[in-house]
């Protein structure tokens, strides 16, 4: 154990949180070993490395485990200082990025889960909540793109881009699985153009879970809770 500089990522193929870490590692060009976890039968390693939450992702570096995707991203940014920075240098810009990443993290998961698992009124209510908060996000982050639409040269995704991409980047897959619009260019033009621009990037494409498998997975989550 504890080979110098060895990086291992414990994850699950469908997890958006794991995807964030994969994107960050790829952007920084950090080689790593990936271990797929069966969340219904968690490995001894996972339970040992994340005894508090028993969740993925967990990054293990030099034998030291780090859990919680946003904390892992900050760790990656601070440990591998070469190459692209994931967070801006200026403290105020950093604070803005952390604030909105926290907003994405805190405000959507419950409603998105609820929308996936419910129908009719409950589903409507959950999606209304998602749309309302997307509008808040749109309005709040307009200032990040003073020159108009988001565009990304090379693979210069940052902290907030990665979080948005992991949450809403594969919205089309979710839309197919649930037969509804999630990111509508009329309702949320900025978010739509933002995720569309990111989806062109190789690093984003390479970390996409297989589409058909993902559609089936989302449908099974929905199916399991509606019986």
């Amino acid at each position, binding site marked *: 154990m504890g080979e110098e500089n060895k990086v291992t990522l414990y994850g699950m193929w469908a997890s958006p949180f794991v995807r964030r870490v994969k994107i960050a590692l790829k952007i920084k060009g950090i080689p790593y070993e990936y271990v797929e976890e069966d969340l219904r039968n968690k490995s001894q390693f996972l339970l040992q490395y994340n005894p508090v939450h028993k969740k993925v992702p967990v990054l293990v*570096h030099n034998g030291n485990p780090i859990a919680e995707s946003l*904390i892992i991203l*900050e760790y990656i940014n601070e440990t591998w200082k070469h190459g692209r920075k994931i967070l801006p240098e200026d403290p*105020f810009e950093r*604070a803005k990025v*952390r604030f909105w990443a926290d*907003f994405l993290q805190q405000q959507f998961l419950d409603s998105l889960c609820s929308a996936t698992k419910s129908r009719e009124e409950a589903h409507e209510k959950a999606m209304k909540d998602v749309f309302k908060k997307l509008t*808040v996000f749109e309005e709040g982050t307009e200032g990040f793109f003073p020159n108009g639409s988001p565009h990304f040269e090379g693979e210069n995704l940052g902290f907030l881009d990665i979080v948005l991409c992991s949450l809403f980047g594969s919205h089309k897959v979710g839309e197919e699985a649930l037969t509804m619009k999630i990111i509508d260019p009329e309702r949320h033009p900025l978010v739509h153009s933002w995720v569309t621009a990111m989806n062109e990037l190789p690093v984003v494409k390479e970390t996409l879970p297989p589409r058909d498998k993902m559609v089936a997975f989302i449908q099974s989550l929905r199916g399991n809770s509606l019986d």
Partner: protein
Amino acid sequence: MAEEGVKLFGTWASPFSRRIEVALKLKGVEYEYIEENLTNKSPALLNYNPVHKQIPVLVHNGKPVAESFVIMEYIDETWKHNPILPADPYERAMARFWAKYIDEKFWPAAKKVLVTKGEEQKGVIDEIQQQMKNLEGELKEKKFFGGESFGFLDIAANIIIWLVVAQEALGMEILNEEKLPILHGWLQRLLNDAVFKECVPPKERHLDFFKVKFGSSIASK
């Protein structure tokens, strides 16, 4: 035209705004404090934090920062002396991990214990005590979570002080020396620290606060 200086919007009984006071005092940063009435929020607060309309908000040279951990990181990165976070990336990750744990697990449980009764309350107390045992595992033999002096995680753990005042006000037994000796020792050191002790609500007023707000919902023993 640009506003100079540092302002903090907070409330006297909020652990979240008190965290920011600790950070600013530790760094020796001069600031103007604005006490908010949360039932009648000021236009300034609503302007500076339109998304959440919450305290604390730090305004530095006219630019607002909201969310207590985001503010603490901002303070640490802007005023670099007397660092709050450790230098080592792994230790920083651990401090952030346990701070998040406190806000996402401990804080909801601490609030719940005040509004539950009987068996349900007992279950919540067990949960909180287990959480505090987990925190003890992180503290171990150190003087503070930050080492020789207090740091990010000690500041984040200020909520434990609120729990201790609440338990005294309402006659509950959750954190005591026998059950949680390591955390109990830490707490005494924290409350004796010259900077930290200025950033907790005045004891009598705080006890009254809990008695008035939650007194009737606690079952008698």
